[in-house]
Every structure is written in C-alpha cells, then in structure tokens.
C-alpha cells in the first residue's frame, strides 16, 4: 500500500465531498438534527440525574446494578405503598417496587412482577428514557426475552403539560445521532464516493494511475473515517457531560465505523450510479438506524427482529458505554459487531470481484 496515494485520494475526496450537495447533506444531517433538537427542546441540555424512587426489600441485583449507573440517582422509599407518593414528592422520573424474591424468581423463570410508577409530569422523552432504561437493565439480568412482568402505573394522570428539561432525551438522542452519523457514512458517503468514480468514469483514470484498487478503497474509507471522526467528535464534545466511559465510547464508535465502511464498500461495489445510491440509501439507513430509535412498547417479535440488525449491538454498546456501564454484555455486543464487520468486508470483497474491479 502506497500511503502517499491513499492520502492523495482522501485529500481529493474530502475537498470534493464538500462540493457535492448529496454528500454535504448526508454529512450535515446529524449535526442539523442535533441543533434542531437543541433549539426546539432547550431543556435537553440539562444533565440532571434520572431520579428513581425504589422499594427493594430483597436487595435485588437489579437495583444494585442500577445504583452503578452514573446517570441514575436511586432514592429509597420506606415502603411499597409510599413509593408513588415519594415519586411525586421528590419529583422523580418514576418509582420501582421490587418483590422480595425477585432474583430467585427471575432465575427460576417465574417472571416476577415489577411495579413501575411513571411520573407523567416529566417530559415524554424522559419517560421514554426511563422505560427504555428499565427494559435494558432487566433484560441484562438474564438472557431470556421477558425475565419479568412490567406493570406500568401512571403517577398524576391529569398532568398534561410536559415540563421541559431533564435527562432522558439526550440519553436516547446522542446514540441516535451517532448511529445516524455512522449510518450516513455507510449508506451514503462511502457508496457515493465509489459510485461517482464509476459513474463519471474517473475510476478508469484512477486504475490507470499508480493507485491500486485497494488503495482507492482505502482512500475512500479514510474519507469516511475522517468525516465520522469530525462529526461524531463534535457530537461527543458538545455532549461530553453525558459520556460515562470515553475510551469505551471511542472504541465502540471505531468498531461501528469499521462495520459501516464495509457496508459502504459493499453498496458502492454493487451500485452503478448516484440515483441508485439515493434510492437504496434511505432503506439501508432506516435499517441501520432502526435499533437506535426510542422503541418502547414494541411487539416482542419486532424487538427480536432488531437483534438481527448489526447496529442493534452497536446501539446497545453505545448506550452502555455512554452510561459507563461496563459489564460483560458490552463486550459481547462489541464481539458481535466485529463479527458482523468481518462478514460485511467479505461481502464487499465478493461484490468487488463480482464486478470485475479486482
């Protein structure tokens, strides 16, 4: 590999991409969405703790794990009955009543009931964040799809006016924006960079120059990496207060980047023109981003289907690393992501050979 050639291609693409309205749109969308949310919902800048009132007389693993999450502040309720009133009194996002034998019942597959109070005075985003968080925490306990039965109880049903602010939205929004950035790179930027060279026949010039196909692909991939580092970096720096474990967040994004670049090379090899990329990019982007959408109340089948999308593992790993929640689960997620990246790269090489580009 000639690094000078790769650098020349990357330099050219970085400059040229800014002048390409499709690429510029793809690159700017995550930043635009971030700005839009901040303008429309200024409260998301706040970094309050997600206050949760808990009655856990059995000292369950669930609550002890939740206590480790930096963004959650646990407040102990004196009794199960007092939980609801404590939620209102302390203006918490919600409350949780954990049965005495919760751990053993979960282990036995008995699906014990978890009584959950949700404070309707809080914003819908905070409520969704709370619901999602609980769902994750409980699922993290055992591998079965439904370890416990959730009974959701609304606190202050009459509360119609949503108070702005609070944590929750950014907990969902930041992973969503990061996945959107990666998705744009994989579904739009890298394929467009490759397809344009084919469409405009400049690939013939490149292939006749000292650049090999590997160097051309590497140059394109590096452009994608560069733009991701820039945009994801901006998103992370702006939301730095939300980052629980920087090294793990960076590692997760880099592994995600490897995956989406492979997807981009695969798409770029199969497709022939900008029109085709624009047609397919939307679908691919939706599939890649689907696991990162706030998804409470999804049917079990759809929730299970999400697990077949590689970005599900990226999303989960991102959420966990952002929350500073370092457990064996995150390594399992990252492992799946690496495996998916390998498969995507094999597919990309196959597609390149199929199109007789190598």
């Amino acid at each position, binding site marked *: 590999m000639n690094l*000078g*050639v790769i*650098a*020349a*291609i990357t*330099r*050219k693409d970085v*400059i*040229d991409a800014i*002048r*390409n309205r499709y690429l510029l749109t793809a690159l700017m969308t995550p930043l635009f969405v971030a700005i839009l949310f901040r303008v429309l919902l200024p409260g998301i800048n706040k970094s309050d703790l997600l206050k949760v009132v808990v009655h856990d007389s059995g000292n369950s693993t669930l609550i002890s794990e939740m206590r480790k999450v930096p963004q959650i502040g646990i407040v102990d309720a004196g009794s199960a009955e007092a939980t609801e009133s404590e939620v209102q009194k302390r203006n918490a996002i919600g409350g949780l009543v954990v049965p005495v034998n919760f751990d053993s019942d979960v282990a036995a597959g008995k699906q014990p009931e978890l009584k959950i109070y949700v404070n309707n005075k809080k914003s819908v985003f905070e409520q969704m964040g709370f619901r999602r968080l609980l769902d994750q925490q409980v699922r993290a306990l055992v591998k079965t799809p439904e370890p416990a039965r959730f009974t959701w109880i609304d606190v202050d049903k009459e509360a119609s006016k949503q108070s702005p602010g609070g944590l929750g939205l950014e907990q969902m929004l930041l992973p969503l924006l990061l996945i959107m950035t990666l998705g744009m790179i994989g579904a739009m930027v890298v394929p467009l960079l490759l397809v344009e060279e084919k469409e*405009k*026949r*400049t690939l*013939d*010039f*490149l*292939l*006749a*120059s*000292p*650049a*090999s196909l590997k160097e051309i692909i590497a140059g394109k991939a590096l452009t994608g990496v560069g733009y991701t580092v820039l945009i994801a970096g901006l998103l992370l720096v702006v939301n730095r207060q939300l980052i629980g474990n920087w090294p793990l967040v960076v590692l997760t994004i880099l592994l995600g980047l490897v995956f989406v670049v492979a997807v981009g090379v695969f798409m770029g090899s199969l497709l022939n023109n900008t029109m085709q990329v624009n047609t397919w990019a939307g679908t691919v982007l939706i599939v890649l981003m689907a696991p990162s959408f706030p998804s409470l109340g999804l049917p079990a089948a759809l929730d299970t289907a999400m697990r077949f999308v590689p970005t599900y593992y990226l999303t989960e790993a991102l959420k966990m690393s952002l929350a500073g929640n370092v457990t064996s689960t995150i390594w399992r997620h990252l492992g799946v992501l690496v495996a998916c990246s390998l498969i995507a790269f094999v597919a990309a090489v196959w597609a390149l050979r199929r199109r*007789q580009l190598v």
Partner: protein
Amino acid sequence: MNAIEVEQLSRSFNGLQAVKSISFTVEAGEIFGFLGHNGAGKTTTIRMLSGQLLPTSGSARVAGCDVITEQQKLKPLIGVVSEHQNLYERMSGRENLEFAVRLYGQSLSRIDETLEQVALLDRAKDNVRGYSNGMKQRLVIARALLHRPQIIFLDEPTRGLDPVVGREIRQLILGLAQQGVTIFLTTHYMEEADQLCGRVAFLSEGRIVALDTPNNLKVAHGEKAVKVTLNDGQSLSIALTDPDAGQQLEKLINDGQVRTMHSAEATLEQVFLQIAGRELSE
C-alpha cells in the same frame, strides 16, 4: 526497440470473447493506430495494456513491463487518455492536475508547465464544469502528460470535437511523437489515422485483420485505377487491370483531351470496409 509487445492476448467477459488472440509490436517513438468499429475490442485492449484489466490469456509487455505481473511498475511509465472526458468536474483544472501530481508523486511545478503546453494556463482556476469540450479534452491530455510518460494511450482523442480543436489535438500528438513519446491511438477518423500514424492495425470482432502502414494498406487493398478528368469536365475511371488501359490512356493524352489524371487511391475507410466487411462507424 519495441515499446509494446503483444503476444496472443485475449480477454473474455462472461464467456464472450472481446479480444481474440491478438499479436503485434509497437516501436518506441511510433504513432500506432488501432482502428476498429464500436465493440471491436479497442478499449479492452487499451485497458489490458495499461494495467487496468487482466487478460484472460496471452501476454504483453509495455515499456518493458509485464502487464500481468508488473502493473505497479508499468503505470508511472504510461499515460492514458480515456475515450470519456473523465475529469473531476467540481474541481478546477489546476485541482485536477494537482490530484494527478500527488498520485504520481510528481512536483507541483509540473502543473503550470503542462497547462501551458495545452494552452489552459489562463483558465486553470476555473471550474472544469464550465470548460468547453475542447478544453476538457486538452486537460485530460495534460493530465496524462504530467508525469512525462514513455507511452501514451489515446482512446478516441478527437471524438466530438470541432475541426479546429481536433487539429490542435493532432498537432499536440505529433509534437509528442517528435519528443520521442510512443503513441497508441484509437480513432474512428480514418483521415486522422492516415495523417498521424506510422502504422495501423484494423481490429474487427476482437481480431486484428490487417496491420501495415496506411500507404501499404491502400496500395494493397485499394482500387487499381486511374481517374481522368477530361477538358469537357467528364470524369473517367480506367481500371489498370484492363489489358487495353494503356492504349486508352495514350489515346486520350495524344488527343489532348486530358485536363487532370491521378491514381484512384482507396481511402483507409474503403480498405477497412473491404477487409472487415463492415463500415468503421457501425
């Protein structure tokens, strides 16, 4: 010394043979014409000889490099002008050349020199999208010349250009040949090949069906006749194969009826039609 040596070179695409066992050599400094109808295999041959495409069978050496095993060594020694004006249109002329200079590891100072050579220096900062066809073609040629290649492959370099620009490009090609650059030229324009090329090869259905100097081909395959224009404006064609041709001509001259008389030399187009059995433009 041969700049290009091709031996039994073939290429298939999904079972369809685009180039069928062609063999030829091109001498260093020669302008070699590679002529054929659309789909005859000209571009495929150029792509194989310039290291962009691997042959299915056969071998070729270009600038002393094996096109199969020494592609990376070969590429800095050759320049390729594609049949398409494959420029980065959102970039300026200078930026296009800067990119090429970086790919070839050349000095940036070559850019102005080359732009001047193709008379584009004053428009170098303009976006390529605003260039005329002729300007784009000159820029494509400039890009191929930046690294001072030993051999330059020109695929239809004057197609779609107006006659003035076409003539400028031909002058440029002749100038390069005078500097010792070997030119491998494909073209649809037979007059262009006739004017520029030392030798031409006719390619039909992936095979070389004739290879010689344009003159030899015209003599060998052209009509053996004399065209006579009489004083009264009438034109006659006297076939030299006719045993009475000598007597006929003698009589016309003696009678003082001849205004002009010249050999009825065939054009390369006619020779191609005769050999390949189809029009070049088909």
